[in-house]
């Protein structure tokens, strides 16, 4: 296959940017998490694409991506638990209302 390396990398950059936007533009804590997920997907695309072209290092990149995928799933689970904790007490998950701690 001969996909030029630039294309997947650009896709990754686009996903990263979209993920950033998602993390920035949402008030709903869960949607912020989704944005972060997109960013991590972008990282994985990078790693795998690089790995594909770095003939020798294919395995390392793929393995790295694998680790990221699972660890980030764990992170999401923990974040959801915290969000649930928030929702249970505050009856909302709007991060714009979460600002007791400031200044």
């Amino acid at each position: 296959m001969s996909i030029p390396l630039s294309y997947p990398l650009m896709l990754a950059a686009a996903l990263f940017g979209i993920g950033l936007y998602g993390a920035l533009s949402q008030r709903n804590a869960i949607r912020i998490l989704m944005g972060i997920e997109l960013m991590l997907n972008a990282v994985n695309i990078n790693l795998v694409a690089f790995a594909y072209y770095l003939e020798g290092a294919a395995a390392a990149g793929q393995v790295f991506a694998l680790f990221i995928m699972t660890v980030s799933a764990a992170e999401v689970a923990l974040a959801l638990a915290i969000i649930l904790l928030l929702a249970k007490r505050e009856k909302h998950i709007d991060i714009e209302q979460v600002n007791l701690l400031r200044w």
Partner: protein
Amino acid sequence: MSWTLPVSVIVSIALGLAAPGLRRLFGAGLGRVLALWPLALFVYFLGLAPGIAEGEVWRASFRWFTVPAGWLPGGAGPFDVHFGFALDGLAFLFVLLITGVGALVMFYASSYLGKDENHGAFFAYLMLFVGAMLGVVLADNLFVMYLFWEMTSITSFLLIGFWSHRPESRAGALKALLVTAAGGLAFLAGAALILVAAGSVDLETLLAGGEGLRSSPLYPAMLVLVLLGAFTKSAQAPFHLWLPNAMEAPTPVSAYLHSAAMVKAGIYLIARMAPILGGTALWVLLVAGAGIVSLVLGAYLALRQTDLKAILAFSTISQLGLIIALFGWGTTAAVAAAVLHVLNHSVFKAALFMMVGIVDHETGTRDIRALRGLGAFMPVTAAVAMVAALALAGVPPLNGFVSKEMFFAASLETGPVLAGVPGGGVLAVLFPALAVLGSIFTFIYSLRISHGVFFGQGRPPAAAGGHGRPHDPPAGMWLPPVVLAALAVVLGVAPGLAEGSIVAPAARGVLGPVDVPHLALWHGFNAPLLMSAAVVALGLVAYARGPALDAVIGRLPVAPNMNALYDGFLDGLQKTADFVEKRLMTGFTRDYIAYMLGFLLVLLGVTAASVGPFSLQTDWPPQGSLEWAELLLAVLMAAVALSVPFFRSRVAAVVSMGAVGTGLVIMWTLFRAPDLALTTLVVEPVTLLLFLLVFVYLPRLTRDVFPKTARWVNVALAAGGGLATTLLLLGVRGLRADRTVADWYIENSLPLAHGANVVNVILVDFRGFDTMFEITVLALAGLGVYILSNLRFKGGPK
């Protein structure tokens, strides 16, 4: 090796720490008992006088720490820093002052403090302060000196703020600490630069290598930093701001700190550094300049005061300026005059402060406008006041006259010193003129605080305490100032007494082995005598016409001072802090993320710019072909991803996430990563399922909008981030295909690990450890979820 030097310091500190406990033993007599220790030290050290006069130096030194090789430029080292003490002529003078005046002050304070005041704490602080002061003057290297230097700042803070129920005391204490501790840090920075330039902080070594230091490129910086330390400590203009506020201290504290101790530490530092850093044009300008300005400014400001203690405070600034100016000139005559005046000033100034304490105690006021004719009621105090004040004014036959004469003489002989200084010709004339002017001011306020208060026309006010007419205090309070006043007379009539044993060795500590001019009351008819006569004559006239003088001074502007700057600095700091914080630390997570990403973009931009003009080296249009299906996949993924933040429906957003995940699976297969594809197929749905599950429990957000500006900022940040990375990533081309560890994996996975799938082999064999570790992380996340979720909630804090 003399173990008594460290012992004198350590025992003082230990007594300080033990004082609150000793209070139970001695009650209100604690101060008198503790005063025995500095007294004993005074007697002991006085006994060393003959040896010191011979030029002996007592030393005690322990290896403190080693600076390992390579800490200094050029990789010099390793070298040892010693916790060292040394007693030479210069230190000897200061040790006598610290212990002698210290003993008297403790004796005095014991009577001064009320029975119900906290004697334990007071004398604890005072003893700690004595120990710290001894440490400063006995230290034989700059680090040890700095250690004790900061300790004097801290203990003086506690002493000044002793009456902590008064806000003024607290403010004064804080001001003193902030200014002097900051100056201390400057001193430390200067010491560190000296260490870099000379490779040592031992005073002995530095004395030998002063030449090299003065020609070092770091010299101006180190000089300024060291002087900052000294000037702040000695309250020299423009850093004199803390001293007037420090008058909120109990009067015995002022009598000690502002005559013989704290402020003299700065003088000591300048005297110590004079042979090392002194003698250059910069030194003369800065040191003599600051000194003479402080002399005139302090005396002038003293004229504007009506509070006895405030007058003495400004007087201290002024008199220390005189001493510092002398060290700035640095001639033999000047240095001899300086060390003599260090001694004289401590004697008469301590007596004056004690006198003020008595007056305040007896009448309940310190206002010279209210205080009149006290002499008739308290003759002993009046005698002390007259002697000490006239010594301050420089009237013969008192000690102040001797040193003031020498000061005038030195001011006339600055020609050779000023030869290399820009504007030296003007300064050579200006110095004596300003010396006379400052002395006239000094003369006037000296009479005001003595003659005016004790012999002025009028009735003295009665003490607020209501014990009738003012009268002389008990012996415990009048004895110490009387001793000092007597000393002022003796040193005036027979200055030779102190010459051989104290003044000459001290001067030699600064100048090296030279002949020190003979001290005498009478030098014959000469220019300095003429200057003194002029001071007395003009001073008398001005004093007699007090109201007219006040009217003139009233019309003059208040001299500029750094109070506004200090307040402004603290205020500004406060406001800036408030502003920055309220602006940045808003508490909104979104703001935090925005700031962080914004700065990330800035960093990217700055870094890109710092590389200079670089071609992006893009391989655009890329080599190779793209199947339309692949392109479609990429576009679809981007589009679907883009929909995630925009979908109103939460479920739709989750479905979009799933679509992106599916796209990823296809990509992995395209990139020959089947293991990854399979993993994604498993992990992705689980994550999405989690999202969906949680939705069940969560309230719905009705509107998801921000203010318009915020939305644009978001778009800009995200677009900027995406664009910048895209641009940079276009620079990727011609990847190196070096042989790396990965090849080793591929070659070895079959023989070593008996597996054909490289990724699998890596996961379970070569990177088995990471995999295991990762499993730990997963378990950890599970644990976190378990703890935070509701499984075992047992209520909040008890």
